[in-house]
């Protein structure tokens, strides 16, 4: 199983995750669970770019997440992960706070492990 597949499996298990797409910052799709991921990947990449542009302009630290709020909590949430953006569409009527917390913890875990591996 490739690293991308392992990542996709883990993300899909998180409570509240409906659809997701992982893109590189250039918009290239790495993994997803959609039949037609291009549209969502574009929104995710543009959202990530925009959030990074604001952080550079204002001098904030790396953005943690971005939320496009929709009815019934079917929100699109974009996370920053090193040189990638992870976009997750939330399942209806689930907790955004729990989803954000669990995904953030998982992404933080990946980053820590990468740092350890790279010494």
């Amino acid at each position, binding site marked *: 199983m490739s690293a991308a597949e392992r990542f996709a499996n883990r993300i899909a298990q998180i409570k509240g995750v409906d659809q997701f797409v992982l893109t590189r910052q250039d918009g290239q799709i790495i993994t997803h669970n959609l039949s037609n991921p291009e549209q969502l990947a574009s929104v995710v*990449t543009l959202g990530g770019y925009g959030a990074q542009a604001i952080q550079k302009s204002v001098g904030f630290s790396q953005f943690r997440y971005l939320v496009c709020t*929709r009815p019934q909590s079917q929100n699109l949430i974009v996370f920053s992960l090193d040189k990638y953006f992870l976009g997750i569409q939330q399942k209806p009527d689930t907790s955004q706070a729990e989803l954000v917390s669990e995904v953030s913890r998982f992404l933080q875990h990946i980053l820590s492990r990468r740092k350890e591996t790279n010494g």
Partner: protein
Amino acid sequence: MQQLIEELKSIPGVVGASVYRPKQGVLCHNLPTLFKAERINEIGKHLAKIHAAGRHNFPDLSEVMVNYEEATILCRQFQGGDFLLAVCDPGVNFNLLAMSMNLALEDFHGTVPTTVAQTPAAAPVAEEKAVSPPPPSTPKVDPAALKETEGLVEPLQIMLQALTKIMGPMAMIVFDDALIAWASKQAPAVSTLKILLDILCEEIGDQEKVGRYRELVKKQLSLDQN
């Protein structure tokens, strides 16, 4: 508008707010001086883009929120396409903020029935642009609504998907602008899709890519390719 942003600022956890109008800039704000004028404009510009991109996929999108370690920024579109931005502490109570924003906007809509051109009462960042005469009254085109028009849903979807393959993520922004240009010139209909195609090709610029795009569209749509 000044009253609107003052009301928002009175909510616990809100550092300040601003009103941003695309193509004009910030109309008014009450953010701390730490936020310089050009930075507030930049924030508005980027959030408006994120909002536009989000609405491509989700026409029911209500607001955009970006969370940083230092602050959280909330952005909501309101009358005439303007954006209301609130910069908050990261730990702000969002339910309270969302409800207060709704109430403040309801209040605002109730007291200001006119379309646009409120004079900024204080801290006019883009003063020069804000006092310029309002644009001529061209009919407003809503790209999201256009994409749901009967008979146009499928061809527009095909054209956008093909454009995404050629231009990547920027396709969504370019496509919306092209839709506005197209629908402003003539009645949007299947019979005039070729004009939209020409507008898009002009935006692509690169002749090789234009050729590929025309080919992709031609494969799936039977447009008159004179």
